[in-house]
């Protein structure tokens, strides 16, 4: 589904990713772990198309398409969605506007007509209930005045409504208390299916107790240096990253 090959990325002339390769298949949940500054957020930002990242070598393909040649919105419409670490506040734009516009843009890209209002409302209300969010929230401006936890729930709500093929979650657990973490994790788990994949970037093993990954990768200094199953995360939790560093240097 997603194929990242020998990716080199620089920010302001400084190389952050130094030959990262990664394959994510449909049906899989991957977790990328690593210390601060390893390049975790850079990877998801580059895939989503954020400005300021220069790809100097390598490739990213998504279902056979060259992602780096696609506009930001094309990537999203193709089913590549990024859940932000710091969701931006958008005063004056109601959540319902955003959801509706985003869903219709995705449908239009597939050659489908606009979603009928009753169907749309039913879907949104179901997902809201699932995320334990009040319906009044739809009439509020996107993320404006939201707590950290509400912002993260909102990211997941958007995912549930838009049903991405590949959901990328950038530190989705940061700033969440345990109850909010459970709700967010349930939301992500509900996205899991044979046709979909999830790529999580996280600092903490804690998230992986609730969203159990199929594959865990260790990102150190711009490269994936070790991959394993969920037990690797537990090992990282108890032993830290140093041993991986030493192992990869050896």
């Amino acid at each position, binding site marked *: 589904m997603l194929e990242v090959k020998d990716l080199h990325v620089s920010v302001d002339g400084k190389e952050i990713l130094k030959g990262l390769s990664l394959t994510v298949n449909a049906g899989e949940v991957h977790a990328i772990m690593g210390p601060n500054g390893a390049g975790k957020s850079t990877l998801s930002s580059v895939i989503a198309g954020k400005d300021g990242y220069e790809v100097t070598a390598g490739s990213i393909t998504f279902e056979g398409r060259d992602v780096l040649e696609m*506009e930001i919105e094309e990537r*999203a419409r193709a089913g590549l969605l990024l859940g932000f670490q710091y969701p*931006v506040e958008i005063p004056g*734009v109601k959540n319902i506007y*955003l959801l509706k516009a985003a869903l219709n843009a995705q449908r239009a890209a597939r050659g489908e007509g606009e979603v009928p*209002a009753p169907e749309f409302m039913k879907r949104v209300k179901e997902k809201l209930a699932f995320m334990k969010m009040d*319906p*009044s929230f739809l009439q509020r401006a996107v993320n404006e005045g939201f707590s950290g936890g509400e912002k993260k729930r909102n990211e997941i709500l958007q995912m549930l409504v838009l049903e991405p093929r590949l959901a990328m979650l950038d530190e989705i657990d940061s700033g969440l208390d345990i109850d909010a973490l459970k709700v967010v994790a349930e939301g992500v788990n509900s996205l899991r299916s044979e046709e979909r994949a999830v790529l999580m970037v996280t600092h903490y093993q804690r998230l992986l107790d609730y969203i159990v990954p199929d594959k865990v990768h260790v990102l150190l200094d711009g490269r994936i240096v070790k991959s394993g199953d969920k037990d690797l995360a537990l090992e990282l939790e108890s032993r830290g990253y140093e041993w991986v560093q030493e192992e990869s240097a050896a």
Partner: protein
Amino acid sequence: MSDKTQPSAEQRFLEKLKAREAVRGAEPTWIAARRQAAAARFEAIGFPGRRVEQWKYTDVRRIRDGEFALADDADFSPAQAAALTLPIEAIRLSFVDGVFAPELSDTGALPAGASVEPLTRALADNHEAVGAVLGRLTGVEFSPFAALNTAFAEEGAVIRLAPGTVVETPILLQFLSRAGERPVMSHPRVLIQAGARSQATVLEHYVGDPTAANFTNVVAEAILERGALLTHYTLQESPLDDLLVRSLQVEQGRDSRFTSFTVNLGGALVRNDLVADLNAQGAEANYYGLFFAQGRQHVDNHTLVNHNAPLTFSNENYKGVLDDRARGVFNGKVVVKRDSQQIEAHQSNANLLLSDRAEIDTKPELEIYADDVKCSHGATTGQLDEDAVFALRARGIDAQTARGLLTLAFAGEVMEKVELDAVAERVELTVAGKLPERFNLGGLVEAALLDEQAFEEASGHDRND
């Protein structure tokens, strides 16, 4: 006039007055005298040049150098008028190129104690009563355009509310601009007399043939007696070649409240002056404004609040969106007179520039001669938040729609205060429709409005906000 020298622009305008006098019937002495004095004043001071501080950023040559006839009928296709008319239940007076159009007017819903009449009828009924008030707030010295208006004015609206009268239905003054063989000018007057504790909503709506290119020069005055509540809307959707100069001066008595919404979407050259005199304690003025200009449109808003008494309050929020090579001017002045203690005055102007070549000149002015006051003012000008643009695109919304949504959101803050839903929706749709075509928002906004309705119906009583 000598046939050797070219007449001045002012003389060219005043020739039209002479021609009009030749065909107009006799008028009461005071009106004739006032016209004469106003014409003399206008000829003496002339059109304002850029060196006049009040007109520093607004070049009126397009008016000065224009050739404008006076309209002598109010013929307008009823179908077209219907399409242009705001879809709200209203007490309505319509003017076509400044001429009263009875067949496009309807004052049937007026309650007892209220009168809404064309100026011509009010003068015919009792010209002394009108003359005692008309021009009291806006004299010929206010501006050259006020003098020009006073010299020419024959038409307009007179709204009178007896003490305690509450008019629930909005009073709509519709000014229709027609595309004709040659451009015309009109000089309407509006007079609002709101008696003690009366309440009303008055809406001036400027709209017309898209290809019209006329000059409209309005002088409006409103007198609010003790406890009167007046909400005044100006919805300016003039044809894009129209020239519009208008002023509204308000005099406020004790505990009166005046709320103004000035929305400018159309016109080639537009100047609005808004002045409130808060003359007794408890008087409150709220000014809300939105201007959206593109192409080479020029929109100038000059506002003034005079805190002439202690315990008076004013609040102002104007927002501007400028695209292409459009130019906006905001000059907001607040004057707190000596001994006007315990007043509160807040002002803000925020502008959004969508193009590098758009320009805004914004100037807040505070003159405070009292010491126990609470005042704030601020002006900001910026571009769209690119992080927000990215966040929307990252959900699949194309860049132009994302920019359009954010622009609407910026403008929306002012519109939230609008109490007439039909006006708020009209503005929202018009702003969306007027955004450059590439923004393509019309359908989206319409759909979202429908969704809100569907949402409200679906949620029913379980909604707790």
